C-alpha cells in the first residue's frame, strides 16, 4: 500500500502526534522544558565561562591565589581567625563574573565555574543512567511478562529482592566495593574513577522500578485478543514482541525517562555527597555540596547553590515528566506517586 | 389524573466541554403518579439516565448546569437546600444503578451499607439497623440472609448484588424508586427475577421510574411509557396505547426492531437507519428528522409534545399514523432489500 498522509483525509492524527499536541498545550511542562534547556546550555558553556570570563581552572587549587574585588587585590583564601586558626575562609560571592562570581571553595576554586562543570557531570550521569535503566527495565519487564513460567518467576523474585532492598543502601554497597578496583564484568571494564561507574550502579538499582510496572502491562497484553491472533497466525515471537508488544509499552517507558532522570540525579548527588559517587578530580553538584560542608556556616553559598540547581533541575524534570505522563500514559507510575 | 408524585417541567441539562456546551436533556417534562410505573426508553445517549440523575441532583460535575423544575410532592428539588435534599435521597426517592458490580463500596459488608442508609435517615440503634438489613436481604430473596449480611460485595454474584442494592433502596420504604437499567448488566434469567422484585415493590405502593433501552422490559412492567430521543420526549402515554398505537416514527422503529417469538420469521430484523444523534449536535428542529423516512419541511421546526393522555412530538397528521407507519415500514424494507441485492 502506498498511502501518502494527504490521501488519508480522515486519518486520525495518531497517538504520538496527539501526545505532542497535548504536551505543547501544557504550559507548566513547556516552562519546565525551557528551564531544562537553559540549564543544559549553561553547562555546555562551562569551558567558555572558565576560560574567557572567569579566567580560571576550576579543577586546580588556588590556595595562594589572589583576585580583584572593587579594584583592590585580595587573597582568595584567608586563614580563619577563629578557633585554632587551622581552617581557611575562602572568598565569598563577589557578583562579578570575572572574579569569583559565587566565591571560592576551600581550595580557592571558582564555585560558579565548578557548578557549570559539575552540572555537566550530574546531567550526564542522570540522563545516561535513566536511559540505561529504562532500556534494561523495559527489556527485563517485557521478557518476564511475555515468557511467563519459570523465566518470569525467577526474574520476578530477583526484582522483588532488589525492590525490597533500600535503594540508597544498595547503591552505597555497590559503590564502596567498586570504587577501589572498578568493575570487570566479562568484556566490560569500567575504570575505578570513571563516570560510568555511578552510571552503571544507578542504572542497576532502579531496574525494578521500570521492570515491575512494565511486566504487569505485558502480562495484561499477553491475554489480549490481538496477541492471541498474532500467535495464532504463526508470527515468530520476536516479531510479535517488536510489532505488537513493544509499541504498547514504549509510551510508558518514555514517561518514565524524565522521572527516572530526576531520581538518578538525586541518587548521584547523594552518593557523591557521601563521597562514594563521582570521584575527584571530576566534580558534580553532589561533590560540590560535600566540598561546602565544612564551610556551611561561613560560606553557605558553596552548599546552597549546587543544591538549588539540583532541586530546580529535578523539579523541572518531574514537572516535564508529569506532562509527558498526562500526554502519553496517565496511569504510568514509578514506585509510589512519582 | 391524581396529583402527581413527581412532576418534572422543562428540565434542561447541559455540559460545558472543551468544544462548547453540549445539551444532554433539552426541555424534558413528565410526571409520575403515586404507585405508578413509568418506563423510560431510548437509545444510549438519549438523555434518559442523565435526566434521572438530574432529578436527584446527582450530577456533581461542576461543568454541568441543570435548569427547570423538579416538583416532588409539590416541592422543587432543584431549589432545595443540600440538607433537605439529602433527607429526600434514599428516604423518599431511592435509586438503583445499572452496574451492580461497582455500585457497592468494596470495603464494607453488604449489611453495613444497608444499615448505613437506615441510620442516615432514622434514629435507630446499630443493632436494629442490622436486623432490618437482614430482613430486607431476605425480602429481596437472598437465601441465608442472616449470614450473608456479613458478606462483602465481592463475595456476591452480580444478581445477588443487584438484589442487595435494591434491598438498600427499599430500606426506607421510598415513595419513588428510580431504577436505571437495573437488569442490563445481568443474565437473562436473573433479569426476570429482578423485574419481579421491582413489580413486587410496586405492589407495596412505591412508584417506579424504570429506565431501559429494552422495549420488552417496558411492555412487561410499565403503566406508562416515555420514549426519549436526543434529550427530548418523543412520545408519552399509557403502555397499551404506546404499544398498540405508537404515534412517533422513532417509537415505530423501536417496536419494529424487537424480535417476536410468535411472529413471522424475518430474514433480517428491521433497524432504524442512520446513527443516533450525539448530544453535541442535536438539530434545531425535530431531533429524529435526519433518520426519519417521513420527514418533510415542517420538521425543520421543533415539534412540541402534544396530545391528551397519549402525547407525541411529531408534525405528521395526527389521524392516520397507523397508515403512515405501514408506508414507512414498506419503504424501509424496500431499502433493505435493495441493500441486500446490491450486496449479493
Amino acid at each position, binding site marked *: 500500500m502506498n498511502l501518502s498522509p494527504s490521501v488519508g483525509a480522515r486519518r486520525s492524527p495518531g497517538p504520538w502526534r496527539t501526545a505532542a499536541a497535548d504536551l505543547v498545550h501544557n504550559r507548566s511542562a513547556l516552562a519546565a522544558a525551557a528551564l531544562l534547556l537553559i540549564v543544559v546550555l549553561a553547562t555546555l558553556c562551562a569551558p567558555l565561562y572558565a576560560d574567557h570570563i572567569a579566567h580560571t581552572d576550576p579543577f586546580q587549587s588556588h590556595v595562594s591565589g589572589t583576585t580583584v574585588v572593587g579594584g583592590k587585590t585580595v587573597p582568595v583564601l584567608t586563614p580563619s581567625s577563629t578557633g585554632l586558626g587551622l581552617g581557611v575562609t575562602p572568598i565569598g560571592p563577589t557578583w562579578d563574573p570575572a572574579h569569583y562570581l559565587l566565591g571560592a571553595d576551600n581550595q580557592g576554586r571558582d564555585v560558579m565555574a565548578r557548578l557549570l562543570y559539575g552540572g555537566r557531570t550530574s546531567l550526564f550521569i542522570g540522563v545516561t543512567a535513566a536511559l540505561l535503566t529504562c532500556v534494561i527495565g523495559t527489556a527485563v519487564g517485557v521478557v518476564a511478562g511475555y515468557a511467563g513460567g519459570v523465566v518470569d518467576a525467577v526474574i520476578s523474585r530477583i526484582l522483588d529482592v532488589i525492590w*525490597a532492598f533500600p535503594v540508597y543502601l544498595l547503591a552505597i554497597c555497590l559503590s564502596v566495593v*567498586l570504587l577501589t578496583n572498578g568493575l570487570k564484568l566479562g568484556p566490560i571494564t569500567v575504570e575505578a574513577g570513571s563516570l560510568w561507574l555511578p552510571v552503571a550502579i544507578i542504572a542497576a538499582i532502579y531496574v525494578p522500578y521500570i521492570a515491575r510496572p512494565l511486566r504487569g502491562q505485558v502480562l495484561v497484553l499477553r491475554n489480549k485478543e490481538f496477541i492471541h491472533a498474532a500467535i495464532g497466525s504463526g508470527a515468530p515471537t520476536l516479531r510479535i514482541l517488536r510489532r505488537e508488544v513493544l509499541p504498547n509499552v514504549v509510551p510508558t517507558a518514555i514517561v518514565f525517562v524524565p522521572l527516572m532522570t530526576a531520581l538518578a540525579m538525586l541518587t548521584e548527588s547523594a552518593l557523591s555527597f557521601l563521597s562514594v559517587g563521582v570521584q575527584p578530580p571530576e566534580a558534580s553538584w553532589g561533590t560540590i555540596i560535600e566540598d561546602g560542608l565544612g564551610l556551611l556556616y561561613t560560606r553557605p553559598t558553596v552548599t546552597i547553590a549546587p*543544591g538549588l540547581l539540583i532541586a530546580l533541575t529535578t523539579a523541572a524534570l518531574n514537572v516535564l515528566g508529569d506532562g509527558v505522563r498526562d500526554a502519553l500514559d496517565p496511569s504510568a507510575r514509578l514506585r509510589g506517586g512519582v | 389524573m391524581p396529583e402527581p408524585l413527581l412532576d418534572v417541567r422543562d428540565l434542561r441539562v447541559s455540559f460545558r466541554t472543551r468544544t462548547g456546551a453540549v445539551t444532554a436533556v433539552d426541555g424534558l417534562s413528565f410526571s409520575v403518579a403515586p404507585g405508578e410505573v413509568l418506563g423510560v426508553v431510548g437509545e444510549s445517549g438519549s438523555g434518559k439516565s442523565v435526566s434521572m440523575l438530574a432529578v436527584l441532583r446527582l450530577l456533581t460535575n461542576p461543568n454541568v448546569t441543570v435548569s427547570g423544575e423538579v416538583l416532588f410532592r409539590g416541592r422543587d428539588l432543584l431549589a432545595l437546600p443540600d440538607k433537605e435534599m439529602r433527607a429526600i435521597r434514599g428516604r423518599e426517592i431511592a435509586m438503583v444503578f445499572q452496574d451492580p458490580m461497582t455500585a457497592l463500596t468494596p470495603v464494607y459488608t453488604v449489611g453495613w451499607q444497608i444499615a448505613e442508609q437506615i441510620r442516615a435517615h432514622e434514629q435507630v440503634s446499630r443493632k436494629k439497623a442490622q436486623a432490618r438489613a437482614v430482613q430486607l436481604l431476605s425480602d429481596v430473596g437472598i437465601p441465608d440472609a442472616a449470614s450473608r449480611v456479613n458478606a462483602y460485595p465481592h463475595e456476591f454474584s452480580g444478581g445477588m448484588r443487584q438484589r442487595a442494592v435494591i434491598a438498600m433502596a427499599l430500606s426506607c420504604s421510598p415513595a419513588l424508586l428510580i431504577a436505571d437499567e437495573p437488569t442490563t448488566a445481568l443474565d437473562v434469567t436473573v433479569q426476570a427475577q429482578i423485574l419481579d422484585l421491582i413489580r413486587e415493590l410496586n405492589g407495596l405502593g412505591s412508584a417506579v421510574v424504570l429506565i431501559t433501552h429494552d422495549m420488552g422490559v417496558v411492555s412487561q412492567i410499565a403503566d406508562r411509557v416515555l420514549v426519549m430521543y436526543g434529550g427530548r420526549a418523543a412520545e408519552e402515554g399509557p403502555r397499551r396505547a404506546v404499544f398498540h398505537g405508537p404515534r412517533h416514527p422513532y417509537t415505530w422503529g423501536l417496536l419494529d426492531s424487537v424480535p417476536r417469538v410468535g411472529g413471522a420469521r424475518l430474514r433480517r430484523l428491521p433497524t432504524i437507519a442512520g446513527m443516533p444523534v450525539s448530544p453535541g449536535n442535536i438539530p434545531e428542529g425535530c431531533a429524529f428528522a435526519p433518520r426519519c423516512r417521513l420527514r418533510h419541511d415542517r420538521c425543520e421546526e421543533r415539534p412540541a409534545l402534544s396530545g391528551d393522555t397519549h402525547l407525541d412530538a411529531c408534525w405528521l397528521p395526527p389521524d392516520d399514523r397507523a397508515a403512515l407507519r405501514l408506508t414507512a415500514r414498506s419503504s424501509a424494507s424496500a431499502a433493505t432489500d435493495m441493500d441486500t441485492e446490491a450486496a449479493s
Partner: protein
Amino acid sequence: MLSFALKRFGSALLVMFAISVLVFLIFFATPGVDPAARIAGRNADPATLAQVRHSFGLDRPMPIRYLLMMRHLLIDRDLESFVNRGSRVIPQIVQATPVTLSLVIGAALIWMTAGILMGTAAATLRGKAADPLIMLVGVVGVSLPAYWLGEVVNLITQKQLHSSVFSWVPPPGYVGLSQDPGQWALHMLFPWLTLALLYAGIYARLLRGEVITALNEDYVRTARAKGLSERRILIRHALRCSLIPIVSLFGLDFGALVGGAALLTEVVFGLPGIGKLTYDALQNLDLPVIMGTVLYAAFFVVLANALVDILYARLDPRARHA
C-alpha cells in the same frame, strides 16, 4: 489462614536469605575486588594479605564463608568488627535501633497526617487555588536532595536565625527518649520535619489521584443516592478506599527507612542510628558490621511488608482470600 501465614512467613525468610546472599556476593564475590586487600590496607605485603585471608576464612570456598559469617552473626552472635577489633556488631545495632525508630516513626506520623490532609484537600478543592499549591509542595518534596535540605535546615536553625527565632533549637545530636522526653522531641523535631517533607508531598499527590478516582466511582454515586452527607461520603467511602494503595506504599517506604534509607538524614543531623552506623562501616569497609546492619535492614523491610499484608487484608476485604 494458618497456611497463608506459614506461606507468608516462608516467603519472608526467603527474601531475607536472598538479601543476605546478595550483600554477601556484593562484598565477597564482586569481580576484581579482593576483600582481604581492603581489610589489610592498601600497601599490605603478601604475607599480611595471606594472614588476613586465613583469619577471616577468605581462603575457604564461598558457601562456607557465607555460612561462617551467618553463624557468627545469628548463632554465636559474637561477630566482631574488622576495623575496631573487640567491638561486637550486635550490641552496636541494638544501640542504634531506637534512634532510627525514633526518627522514622515520628517522621512517618507527620508525613502521613500531612499527606492525607493535603491529598484529600487537594482532591476536594480540585481546580481551586489550594490544589496547585499542594501539588507544588509535592513536586518540591520529590525534587529536593534529602541531605541538602538537612544542611539548609541546620544552617538556618544553627546559624542564620539561631540568635533570634531558633534560639531554642539544640545542637545536632540525639538524646534518649527515656533520658529526657522533652529534649528527645526537641532534638528530633527538625530531623522529623525534614524527612517528613520529602514524603508528605508524594503521599499527598498519590492520595489526591486516588481520591479523585474514587469520587468518580459508582459506589460514591450510590452513597450520594443513599442521602449521606458529602463529608461522610468523602471520608467513609472515597478516602477509605483510597487508603489501600497508600498503605502498601507506606509499608515499603517505612521498612526501607527503618532499614537504612534514613541514612542521609541521620548523617546530616548527627543521629547515631542504623543509617549512620552503616555509613561509618561502609567508609571503612567493615564487612561484619555491614552484613549485620544490612541483615537488620532486611529484617525490618520484611517485617514491614508482612505487617502491611496484614493491614492490607484488614483494609481490603478482597485481599483476604488471595
